[in-house]
């Protein structure tokens, strides 16, 4: 059984602000899609935190203390947010990152 990560989250991580801002600001989402590095430069991310975002390494982000709910939203911001398409890809890629297994394995 997976241990709850909720009580070990780290509210001080800058990645939380990145996700909140991307949700709330369509222009920032466009900039993120066009120039991800440029958007990441705007946030005081720790080195390992930024590297994990760039590598789509959600396990590393969660181990650092990223809140899983915002992790799920970051996956949708990266891979897609529509119910029947991109969101399913996002969920599958997120779960694969966390478990080391692709869906169906």
């Amino acid at each position, binding site marked *: *059984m*997976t241990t*709850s*990560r*909720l*009580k070990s*989250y780290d*509210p*001080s991580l800058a990645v*939380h*602000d990145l996700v*909140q801002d991307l*949700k*709330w600001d*369509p222009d920032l*989402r466009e900039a993120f899609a066009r120039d991800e590095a440029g958007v990441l430069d705007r946030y005081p991310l720790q080195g390992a935190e930024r590297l994990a975002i760039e590598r789509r390494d959600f396990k590393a982000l969660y181990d650092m203390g990223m*809140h*899983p*709910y*915002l*992790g*799920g*939203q970051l*996956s*949708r911001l990266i891979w897609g*947010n*529509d*119910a*029947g398409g*991109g*969101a*399913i890809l996002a*969920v599958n890629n*997120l*779960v694969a990152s*966390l*478990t080391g297994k692709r*869906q169906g394995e």
Partner: protein
Amino acid sequence: MGEIVFAAGIPHLPAMVGLYDRAPPDVQAVVHNSFESLHAEIKAARPDVIIVFANDHLANSRIRSYPDFLIGMAEEHRGPHEWFKPWIGCRDYAIKGDRNVAATLFRGMIRRGIRLFAEPGALKFDDNISVPVTMGNLDSLGIPLVPVLQNCIVPPIPEQHRCYEVGQALADLIEKDLAPGMRVALIGSGGLSHEPGGSRYYVIDETFDRWFLDLAASGDHDRVLKELTFERMEASGSGGTIELFSWVVIMGATGPCKGRSFGYAIHRDFRCGFGAVIWDLKPQTAQAREQVPA
């Protein structure tokens, strides 16, 4: 003296809307019948206002400054918020708010020792309000809605005993502070078992869900308070199942009463179990509510 005339708990799983057409007929039937019952029974209860305690999923506040309860005071509520539209796949809606009831709620709960916050402007709604409003067509009823967004996700969160106390304070407020004769419908929006953003995103705990729905309908609030713990819900899906604390607020407001479920549905792509309960209210008094210690 106001009166609670309707109370229900209902999940708001977003994928249920966008992927509804792809779900098996038996799953669609449970979802359809539950929301149709919600709509019909609210209409029959003739409330003057619907107060919805719904989970906030980090949609309105920074994680560093997160309110446990946030009242929407706007004259009108619109949704879903732009980013959540493709995610949910529901239609746009606008539903009247009730600034007077929201202000009374804010003032009265603070005076009863419940720390709430209030937003006079527009709140950003995701599935929390959007799913019950659109699936239950609540916006067609012409009844104002007051949303109370509840922290079920950023620890430390209000757990079952605190949520029950909040519900008891809400009932006392409805009875003593609202306008004489005001009829109030209450909805708890959240759950069942799911793990949004987690490694068990696709895991649904059917055993837990059926146990919970039976417990919620039993009216045995002693057991609710003893057994519906943070730890038990986290074991059934981290960060998602605990949304059921919104149902506990409503249970605290109604006091012990039996409820009816409209079946249980499980569909992997929904990434959450589905089942609703409508409680059969009986005349409540403060004395009867206090029989269950929070």
